[in-house]
């Protein structure tokens, strides 16, 4: 891989991101919010850029987000977020030293893979990408079932992970809230009204956005929030190579 030249940039970590992807957004928000010196390298999933040879050198796992810090390469957003928090000694509230609080965050980061992340992604693909870009009709029962699953996860987020706390780990925003909010936004971007009729979730979202900074939040979400418009003009042939895989996974 080509190295960066300037002294300041030599300190910067390289972040391989596609902002359509939820975990890429949590990593970028974290880096920007904490003024972590970084350089963003765009990897377009729609164009299959994760299959490029040079990207394979950064991420054997061939997923975004990926981080490169000198010779050290890392994938998986929870791992990247924790690494950045520890290396750049970010404020304690992101991943507290307190045993129980950090356990709460670990618990959320673990649970969310097969819950909100999975269900939110599914709704995004079934509601928007598969019908509008792949031009494949999604049966109503499948769509309804996916929304039901998402509802179940959102209920657990509210009742088990938030309860009566302002944030998942307590009084302050942490990595758990950051990872949660970007996933919740994905079905929103597909046009699903996630926050309607959920005052507790809405209030939590407002607190998270305020803690991150509305401007930064909106900036990082701009790409995905434009999805409904973009699919109207998107070239569906781009996704043909992974169409079978996508349909198999989500349908």
């Amino acid at each position: 891989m080509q190295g960066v030249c300037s002294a300041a940039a030599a300190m910067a970590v390289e972040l391989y991101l596609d902002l359509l992807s939820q975990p890429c957004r949590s990593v970028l928000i974290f880096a920007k919010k904490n003024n972590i010196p970084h350089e963003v390298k765009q990897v377009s999933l729609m164009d299959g850029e994760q299959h490029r040879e040079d990207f394979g050198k950064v991420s054997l796992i061939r997923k975004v987000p990926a981080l490169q810090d000198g010779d050290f390469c890392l994938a998986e957003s929870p791992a990247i977020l924790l690494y950045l928090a520890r290396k750049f000694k970010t404020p304690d509230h992101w991943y507290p030293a307190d045993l129980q609080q950090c356990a709460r965050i670990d618990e959320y980061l673990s649970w969310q893979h097969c819950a909100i992340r999975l269900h939110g992604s599914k709704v995004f693909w079934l509601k928007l990408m598969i019908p509008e870009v792949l031009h494949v009709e999604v049966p109503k029962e499948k769509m309804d079932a996916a929304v039901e699953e998402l509802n179940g996860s959102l209920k657990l987020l509210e009742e088990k992970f938030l309860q009566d706390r302002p944030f998942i780990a307590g009084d302050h925003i942490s990595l758990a809230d950051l990872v949660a909010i970007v996933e919740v936004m994905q079905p929103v971007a597909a046009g699903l009204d996630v926050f309607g009729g959920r005052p507790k979730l809405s209030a939590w979202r407002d607190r998270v956005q305020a803690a991150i900074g509305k401007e930064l939040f909106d900036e990082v979400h701009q790409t995905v929030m434009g999805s409904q418009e973009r699919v109207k003009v998107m070239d569906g042939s781009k996704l043909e190579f992974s169409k079978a895989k996508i349909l198999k996974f989500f349908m």
Partner: protein
Amino acid sequence: MSLELQNQNHTVDILPHTVRHVALRRGDHRTPEFSQLNPMQKVPVMVDNGFVLTESDAIMKYLVNKYDVPEHWYPRQPERRARVDEYTAWHHTHTRPHAAKVFILEVLLPAQTSSPVDEERLSRAVSQLDDTLEKLESMFLRRQPFLCGDDVTVADLLAVCELMQPEAGGRDVLQQSPQLQRWKSRVRAAVGDAFDQAHAVLYAVRDRRRAKL
């Protein structure tokens, strides 16, 4: 009741604990009592003086932090720790669901529904698991003795237990992977007697099934 874990290469780890059995096959996890403890109705659950924690990787990390166990389980050095975090995240979307699916299709569903195995679905699940095992070997294990480096970590525990599960149906999913078989032997050696103790129920299920054939 304290369980002593003795192994050949590492110092003796003794974490005081009490085991409360939750028989999933009896629906113990769906009782109102258990649901109050864990609304996800899943095991494992840890309770430490009123502090309730779910998710096996979170529980293991908590125990590492609380009890100051040998560092190799979850190294402190940032890059080595990140490697473990990387595997534990990937585990949830690969090793766990793909190995569990084989177990569910081959053992659990047929037992619960008294119906024959859906061979077509099982075959696809096995194929998917084989893909994941290939990635496990090429992306994580590579030429290292353990998944995240030179010494056993919680990542190896998560992976090996997941890959043991299909043994309940008499299936050795590592049969075609000599590298992973050698890795598994190293993990067993590092863990010692606790390995078989933890798998006692699984072995019993496997042996009962064999006896029926």
